[in-house]
């Protein structure tokens, strides 16, 4: 058990190194850069003209359906990983293969449904 978490300690150390690299880059930048903010410089960039309206504009989000699709399928897909390491263990062979086709059938049916519902095409 100790060794198991020990291997993740290396990951944590590398993450810390990554944070240090980021902080170091910002620190070097702070030492080297000029700092002369003016109101004009701090305005939002919109192709060179003065910004029109507020920063967070309203627009039609057409992507939310994909989020639903993703949540449905990705949660399924996560279960693939533990399954994939043992599915051909002795005595399992055919049973798990049939199970796999059931799983694939569900996903394929879901996509087919989304397709028939025309969420994959924009009008």
């Amino acid at each position, binding site marked *: 058990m100790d060794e198991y978490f020990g291997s993740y300690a290396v990951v944590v*150390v590398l993450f810390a190194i990554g*944070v240090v690299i*980021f902080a170091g880059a910002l620190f070097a930048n*702070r030492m080297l850069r000029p700092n002369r903010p003016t109101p004009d410089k701090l305005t*939002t960039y919109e192709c060179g003209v003065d910004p029109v309206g507020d920063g*967070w*504009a309203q627009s039609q989000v057409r992507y939310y359906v994909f989020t639903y699709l993703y949540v449905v399928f990705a949660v399924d*897909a996560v279960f693939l990983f533990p399954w994939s390491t043992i599915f051909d263990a002795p005595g399992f062979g055919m049973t798990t293969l049939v199970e796999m086709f059931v799983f694939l059938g569900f996903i394929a049916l879901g996509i087919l449904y989304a397709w028939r519902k025309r969420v994959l095409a924009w009008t």
Partner: protein
Amino acid sequence: MAEVLDVAVRLVAIVAVFLVLPLVAGQMEHKAMAHMQSRLGPMYAGGFHGWAQLIADGVKFAQKEDVIPAAADRRVFGLAPAVALVPYLVVMVVIPIGPGLVGVDLDAGLFFVLAVMGVGVLGSIMAGWSSGNKYSLMGGMRSAAQLMSYELPLVLAASSVAMAAGTLSLPGIVEAWQWWWLPWQAIGGVVFFMAGLAELRRPPFDMPIAESEIIMGPMTEYTGIRFALFMLAEYAGIIVLSALTSVLFLGGWHGPLLPGPVWMLIKVFALVFVVIWVRVSYPRLREDQLQKLAWAGLVPLALVQLALTGVVKVLTV
């Protein structure tokens, strides 16, 4: 003590790879793109064929003023480049370049890689939202949609390899690899590579950045060192994607004559070249074409690959 030293050497090597290989990939892109477009590319910096161009760029970025627009959400805006960059460094810890030459051999390595790489995309969503700029926001939304759509084929293609190898550890997968996996896992390999390109937002999947319509997408308001870190994240992502594709589908360190790490390097840079080649060759996909390609093209192909892997594996045991 020896054990600590061993880990320290591995970590230093990973950091060196993380800081050097993206620059090599960037220089390669400068030159390969230039020659494909019948021009020379950078020729001045450093004297010999402009080899020091990216170093000069880095020096320039490091001394530029750090402008944070008044409308931005300062804290999220400042943090976004780190969220984009650090995951790619962390992922490198599990990628093997030779027998025993790996940062750490996690038994859930493949799962770890996919989980951590997904975090990288959050950086551009954070940048898009916090900039307080309409174009950035649109870019961030497109990033999010793209991540949603291409994560699924990526995960399915990767799990096909896990099924073939019977393990999730990346060194374990390379050890189990046989040459005939090349045709067997070919569909999965193409799906994985394309979905990975889309997650990196590389052309032709660069709708979130699309400089001709939404300026620079989530990076519009970024300048100086923070912008440079976003760029570094992009090229580190290319290296990580190429290395992962080599490890999962091209047999990693396997190859005749040359030592393992050399083969790994050759495969990685061959794939980096493909990434550049694709960028120069194909026009940008429209947003709805992009979604359609993922759901009606790559996901069904990945499912076909899963079925193929399962049937062959069960029948041959």
